[in-house]
């Protein structure tokens, strides 16, 4: 059954969209990631205009992160103060990101920017995850304990120190703020939640306890992606509510299935699997940039003012 998407102005198979939502939902449920970094490129592959894919994916992440954050709120696993500082940075970053996006859309380079960002970030994250889980598997076999994270780094020498009770930390507000800015820019440009950057940054740079990291990052992601959605809607008119609702529908069901599947698999195997998926999407996108195209020309309809 075909469905016509009013903003993307393309007709797509409804089951393909719900299926994609479910597939990415399963992966995000299994791995505890948002899945935006997989969904947005998949939307490119099925012919959704990149500008619409990015903006609409931000809208979908509002739903998935809200759904996830509710569970963490119930367990009081959210550091609200830290979340607010990350959020302040995030809002600034998202505004900058949408502005960059708008300019590049006008000069016809959005596709290039988004693809480049994806290749770089998926490449880095995918390889890190791959080698880390490989070494985790070998380490477990040789029975060595993982080394403890250093407690005092350059982060602790910065000014503007604040106390974060939930995280049990006394550190400068500057690193979380700038992590927020970076994640905000990525959210706006790539149509992702940015959890895959924020979570490692919170653990390794800020030194937050793992139990509050996911909840706090989800808390920040809800607001940043909500803001990004509204910014894209008002600046670029590229949010397709019809597409978003279909993706959400598939996504929520998939996520629940994924959580149950995830329990049955071992963590390192899961991470190796995820890193292979991430690296293959990266590889496909990189090929499009590197291989000689079949068609050298592209057409874009000018934005009506």
């Amino acid at each position, binding site marked *: 059954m075909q469905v*016509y998407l009013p903003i993307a102005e393309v007709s797509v198979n409804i089951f393909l969209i719900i299926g994609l939502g479910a597939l990415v939902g399963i992966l995000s449920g299994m791995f505890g990631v948002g899945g935006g970094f997989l969904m947005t490129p998949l939307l490119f592959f099925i012919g959704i205009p990149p500008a619409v894919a990015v903006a609409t994916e931000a809208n979908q992440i509002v739903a998935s992160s809200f759904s996830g954050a509710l569970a963490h709120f119930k367990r009081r696993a959210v550091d609200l103060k830290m979340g607010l500082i990350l959020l302040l940075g995030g809002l600034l970053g998202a505004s900058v990101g949408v502005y960059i996006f708008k300019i590049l859309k006008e000069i016809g380079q959005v596709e290039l920017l988004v693809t480049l960002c994806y290749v770089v970030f998926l490449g880095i994250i995918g390889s890190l995850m791959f080698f880390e889980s490989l070494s985790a598997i070998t380490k477990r076999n040789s029975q060595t304990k993982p080394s403890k994270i250093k407690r005092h780094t350059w982060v602790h020498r910065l000014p503007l120190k604040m106390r974060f009770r939930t995280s049990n930390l006394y550190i400068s507000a500057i690193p979380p703020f700038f992590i927020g800015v970076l994640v905000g820019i990525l959210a706006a440009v790539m149509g992702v939640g940015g959890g895959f950057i924020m979570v490692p940054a919170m653990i390794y740079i800020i030194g937050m306890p793992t139990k509050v990291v996911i909840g706090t990052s989800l808390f920040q992601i809800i607001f940043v992606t909500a803001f990004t959605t*509204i910014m894209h809607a*008002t600046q670029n008119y590229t949010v397709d*509510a019809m597409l*978003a609702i279909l993706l959400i529908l598939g996504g929520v*069901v998939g996520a629940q299935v994924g959580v149950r599947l995830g329990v049955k698999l071992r963590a390192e195997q899961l991470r190796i699997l995820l890193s292979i998926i991430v690296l293959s999407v990266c590889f496909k996108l990189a090929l499009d940039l590197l291989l000689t195209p079949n068609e050298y*020309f592209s057409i874009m309809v*000018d934005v009506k003012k």
Partner: protein
Amino acid sequence: MKSFLTLLFLLTASVETVQAKDTVIGGLSTRNVSINTTFTGSDILIFGTIKRGDSEEIVLSDIIIEVFGPKTNITVRRKKKIFGIWVNSDPIKINNSPSFYSIVSTNKIDDILKKSEQLKSKIGRTQFFESKNSDSNYIEAITAKLRIKNKDGYYSFNNPPVKVKETSLFSASISLPANLTEGDYKTKIHLIQKGEVTNTSIDTIRVRKVGLERWLYKTAHNSPLFYGIFSVLLALFSGWGASTIFRRFQ
């Protein structure tokens, strides 16, 4: 003497044609196309008849039918290799380019209509090149546009042809693709005689989004802030709904 008579006959015939020419009367199977949620494209039947004028002479007639989508301004870019990667560059603007174009005819256009006449009447492929701009990059961009639009199913040239019945009745089916742009689609039925356009009948097909599609599109463009907030609330509600429903099942 014989040739003189022929000339005289031709002269009187042409005078009569001026007084009451052959004309073309056209019709459409529908003047309104609605894009709703399940829209997958639409076939439009364009039909008509050639109404004979007062002339005694039966002139061999051909029909060319053109359909134009709403005009938009587009930018064509060429990919260039910069630092090893392919980057869009050299933007060329093409104004008033129809988003859709289809041309069908009773016979091959080049066989029934002189090249000069195609250019003058702006019929067929030549009309896209009609411009003061004869720069080679511009022509290359237009050629690329025609190629891409053709490949994507937005432009079609002479496929399928116009069917003729009893020498004066004709019909043709034009397929509008699923990924259609909203607007007024102009149809032109040209009557071709002796290598020239002798009459044209013009009509319009209104292509409109309807229902939910229309509401979403209009709201997104007319009140973007409301639309953005609406989208976010919709997402929050579904996120909350999903987690509530699944907790029940656990």
